[in-house]
C-alpha cells in the first residue's frame, strides 16, 4: 500500500480560480488528456490499483474521512489499493503532468471543489466523487458530458425518505411537512413529492429564487404545516440564513428538521446526517467492493449508508416536544430496510 499525504498550501477557492483562467485551463486540459490517454489502457490491469484521492484543501473533516477510509482498507488482508492524497490545487498545478511511475486507476474526490477541479479535465479515468451534496454533483455530472460513464458519486446529504422517516419517528403527530426550495433543491421537487406521498406525509413547498424571499416563504409554508424540513441550498438554506430560519420558525412555534449537526446545535430540533468518518468508511467499502467486481465498475451514485441523529433537547423542551433520544431514533431509522430510493 502506498499512501502519500502531500501537504499543500491552503486554498479554499482553488477550483473556482481554475475555472476563471480559461486559457490556462484549456492548455492544462490538453496536456492532461494526452498524458492520461496514454495510460488509460493499463486500467484495470495493474495489480495494486493506485487510488488518487483529491481533497479541496486540508481540513479536519477530510482528515477524519481519510482516516476512516484508511482504517477500512487496513483491515483487508490483500492490499490491492494504494492511496495517494493530494489537494485540488496540487492536482491542478502538477497532478496530471508529474504523476510518476504508476498512474492512478481511479480518482476519488472529497468535496465539491475537488470534484469540480478534477472533472474540469474530463479525464477518461473513473472518478468517484464523494463527500459532496447531491445538487452539486448533478451540476458537475451534467457538465462532464460524455465522460459520465466513468463517473459516480457518494453524496453527503441524506435520502429524502430517511429525513421523512425521522420526522415520522420523532414527531408522529406532525404529518405536515413544509419545505422551502431554492435553485439547487427545487430540481428534485417532483421526486420529493413522490417520496412524501409514499411516506404518507403531506408536503407543502414554497419556491424561492433568492435569499430575500426566504422569511416570507417560511411564514407562508409554516402557516399550515407542523415542521420545517431544511435542505441545503447554496442560495436559500445555508450558513448565512440559518439565523433567520431558526428565529422565524421558533417564533412561529414550529420545529426545524435540519441537515447537519451544526444546525441542531444552532437551534434545529433534530437532524440526520453523516459524519466524515461515516463517509470515509463507506468510500473504503465501495472501493473494496469494486475490486471484487469483474469489470471493476464504479458503484451507482448514492446516498450514505451510515448516518447519525442529533437532537436538541433544549429546543425540544422549550417547544414542548418529546422527539425521543437521538441514539434510539438512529437505531430505529437504521432498522428501516426499505430506504434505498432517494
Amino acid at each position, binding site marked *: 500500500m502506498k499512501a502519500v499525504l502531500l501537504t499543500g498550501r491552503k486554498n479554499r477557492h482553488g477550483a473556482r480560480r481554475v475555472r476563471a483562467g480559461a486559457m490556462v485551463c484549456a492548455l492544462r486540459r490538453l496536456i492532461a488528456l494526452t498524458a492520461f490517454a496514454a495510460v488509460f489502457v493499463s486500467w484495470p490491469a495493474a495489480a495494486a490499483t493506485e487510488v488518487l484521492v483529491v481533497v479541496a484543501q486540508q481540513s479536519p*473533516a477530510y482528515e477524519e474521512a481519510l482516516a476512516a477510509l484508511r482504517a477500512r482498507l487496513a483491515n483487508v488482508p490483500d492490499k490491492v489499493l494504494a492511496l495517494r492524497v493530494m489537494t485540488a490545487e496540487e492536482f491542478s498545478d502538477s497532478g496530471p503532468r508529474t504523476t510518476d511511475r504508476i498512474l492512478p486507476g481511479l480518482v476519488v474526490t472529497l*468535496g*465539491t*471543489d475537488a470534484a*469540480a477541479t478534477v472533472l474540469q479535465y474530463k479525464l477518461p479515468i473513473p472518478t468517484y466523487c464523494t*463527500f*459532496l*451534496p447531491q*445538487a*452539486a454533483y448533478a*451540476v*458537475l455530472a451534467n457538465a462532464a458530458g460524455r465522460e459520465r460513464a466513468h463517473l459516480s458519486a457518494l453524496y453527503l*446529504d441524506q435520502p429524502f425518505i430517511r429525513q421523512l422517516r425521522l420526522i415520522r419517528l420523532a414527531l*408522529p*403527530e406532525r*404529518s*405536515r411537512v413544509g419545505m422551502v426550495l431554492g*435553485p*439547487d433543491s427545487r430540481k428534485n421537487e417532483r421526486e420529493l413529492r413522490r417520496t412524501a406521498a409514499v411516506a404518507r406525509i403531506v408536503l407543502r413547498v414554497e419556491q424561492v*429564487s*433568492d435569499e*430575500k*424571499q*426566504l*422569511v*416570507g416563504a*417560511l*411564514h*407562508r409554508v409554516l*402557516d399550515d404545516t407542523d415542521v420545517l424540513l431544511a435542505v*441545503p*441550498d*447554496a*442560495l436559500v*438554506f*445555508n*450558513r448565512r440564513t*440559518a*439565523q*433567520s430560519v*431558526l*428565529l422565524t420558525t*421558533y*417564533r412561529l412555534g414550529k420545529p426545524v428538521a435540519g*441537515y*447537519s449537526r*451544526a*444546525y441542531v*446545535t*444552532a*437551534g434545529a430540533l433534530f437532524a440526520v*446526517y453523516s459524519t*466524515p468518518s461515516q463517509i470515509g468508511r463507506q468510500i473504503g467499502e465501495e472501493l473494496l467492493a469494486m475490486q471484487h467486481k469483474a469489470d471493476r465498475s464504479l458503484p451507482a451514485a448514492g446516498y450514505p449508508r451510515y448516518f447519525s441523529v442529533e437532537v*436538541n433537547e*433544549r*429546543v425540544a*423542551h*422549550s417547544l*414542548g416536544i*418529546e422527539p425521543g433520544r437521538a441514539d434510539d431514533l438512529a437505531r430505529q431509522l437504521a432498522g428501516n430496510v426499505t430506504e434505498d430510493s432517494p
Partner: protein
Amino acid sequence: MPVANELSRPVIPAARRLFHVTLAVPMFIMALSIPPAGAAEPPLLSEEEFLAELPVVLTASRLAQPQAEAPAAVTVIDRQMIDASGARNLSEVFRMVPGFQVGFENGHRHVVGYHGLADEFSRRLQVLIDGRSVYLPSFGGVSWSDLPLALDDIERIEVIRGPNAVTYGANSFLAIINITTRHSAADRGGFVRATAGSNGIRDGVLRMASGNGDVSYRLTTGYQQDNGYGQRNDSRRITFMNGRMDARPGERDDIELQFGYNEGPRGRGYAGSLENYPHDQEITSRFQQIRWRHRLDSGDEVAAQFYYNHHESDEQVLSLPIPALGGFQVPINYDIRSERYDAEVQHTVGLGESLRLVWGAGARLDLVEWPGFLGSTEPLDNRYYRLFASIEWRATPRLVLNAGAMAENSAITGSDLSPRLAVNYQFMPGHTLRAGVSSATRQPVIIEEKGNARFCLNATCSLFDQSFYSSGNLVPERILANELGYLGRLAPTLTLDLRLFRDHVTRLITGFDGFYDDSLPDNEATDFRNRDKAMITGSELQLHWQPERNSRVILGYANVRIESNDLDAVYSESAPRNSVSLLGLHELGDGLLASAAFYYQDEMRFVDEHPIGVLRRLDLRLAQRFHLVDAQGEAAVVLQNVLGKQVSYNEEDSIADRAGFLTINFRFR
C-alpha cells in the same frame, strides 16, 4: 394627595404631532424603498454547508418556557379556534376561555370579564396587542370596538388566567389577554373579506402585504357595521386601518413598526331621555408603536419598545328642553380624549444552562382630557414607572422555579411591590404540577381618582347636577392569588389543564352614591373608595382533544365562588357559579368544515346591573374552502344564538337574539 398638583400639560401639542409624523413617515419610506432582487450566478453547493459550525441561535436565554413550566395557567386561542368559534368580534372569542364572561352592554360596548368583578368597564384585565397595552386610562378597561384590528390579522391569543404583573405590567390583575398579530411576512399578496347578515351586518376587510428579504409590510383596512341590539340606538360604523412593518436591518436586530386607526359613529342614548336621547358619539382611536430587539454576542437579548395610544370620543349634546328647568336646554359635554405614552426596555440574560434572568424598566405617561367628568378643561396626567425582574431556575430537569417582582411608582398612588413565586414539578413525563403565589395591583383610573362631573345651567356654572365627585386619595387594589395547577398529556392527542385558585382581592375600588349637595334636584354624586374586598375561590378545567388536524374538541369549565363584604352583593354575584364552554370542529372532507360552540353559565349579574338568568348559547358555522383561478377562498355561514333570545348584559335592553351572517374571503398572491 392634592389633586390639583397633578394638573399640568407636560407635552406640547406640536411635539406630539411631530412624533406622529416622525414615526409614520420613515415607516413608509422604508416600506417603499425595497431594492429589487438581484440575479446572480448560483455557486455550487459546497459540503461546507454540512460541516461548518454555526453560532448558537436559540440560546438558553432566547428559548421560551414551555407551557408546562410557565408560572401560570395559559389558554391559547389560535387561528383555527377563532375561525371555528364564528366570532365576528374579538371580544366574543373569550367565551371559550374557562372563567370568562362576555356580555354586550350595547352593540359596541363589549364587556369581557374574568372571575366577575366587572361592570360595563371591565377594569381588572390587562389586554396587550403585540406588547402594547390597550387599557384605557380614562374610564379603564378596553373599548373592544375601537381597536384598529381585524380578526384576520391575529395570529394567536394567549390568555393568562391569574395575575402576572412581573411579565405583563400594571393592571395584570385578574387575568391577561396577550394578542399576537401576524407577522407581515406571513401574508404576502392580497386578502379580501366581505360579510353580510342580519341586523345590518355589513363588514369588509382588505389587506395587502408585500416585502422582500429583510423588510416586509402589511396594510389592512376594513369596515364594520351593524345595528347593535336593533331596538336600541346602539349601532356602530367602524372604519379602520392598520399597518405593520417588520425589518431586519442586520443579523442582530429586528425592528417592528405598527400603526392603527379606527373611527366612526357609535349610537348612544335612549328614547325618552331628555339629556341622553338617541345620538351618535364619534370615536377616533389610533396608535403608533415601535419595537426593537437586539441579539447580543453572549446570546442574550435586549428589547425596547415605545408606543403611543390615542382614544377620543366626541360627544357634545344639548339636552332636550327640561320642563323642571322651565324648558331650559342643558349643554352636556361627554367628550373624552385619552392618551398614553409608554416606553420599556428589557434585558434577557442567560446565567448558565439552568438559570435565566429577565429584567427591565418602563415609564408611562397618561393624559386624560374629559372636561365634562373631570371638572377641568385641561388634561389631567399620571406618570407611572416600573421596574421588574424575574428568574427562571431549572433546579433539576423536573423542577422549575419562577420568581420575580415588579416595583411600580405612580404619581397618584405612590410605590408598590408585586412579587410572584411559582414552582413547577414534572412528576411523570408529560404530567406537571404547579403551585404558585402571585400578587398584583390595579391602579385607579382617572375617573375613579379625580371624577368631578358637573352639569351646568350657564357659563358661570350654576350647578344643575353633579353626577361624579371622587374624594380621591385612592390606593391601588391588590390581589394575592394562590393556585395549584396540573397540566397533563393524557394521550398524544389529549391534554388536560386543571387549576384550583384562591384569589384574595383587597381595597376594591367601588363606585357608590355619596351625599353631595342637598340644594340639587339629585343630592347624590358617585364617589369611589377602596371600600370592598373579595375572596374568589374555585376551579377551572380545560380539556383539549385533537384526533386530527382539522378535528378538535375543546372543553372549558369553571366553578367560581365570590365572597365579599359588598353591598347588594354587587361583587359576590358578579360571576356565574358554573360555566361551560365547548367548541367542536371537524373537517367533513373536500374543504368543508363544520364547527359548533356551546356555552352555558349559571345566573350572574354584572356589577351594578340586573341579573342575567341561566345562559345557554349555541353558535354554528359551516365553511367551504375552494380555489378560484389563483385565489384560495372560503365561504362560511355563521348562525349565532341559535337557541334564541339570551340576556347578554342586562335583562332590560341587552338581549341578544338569533343572528346570522355569510362571510366570504379570498387570498391571492
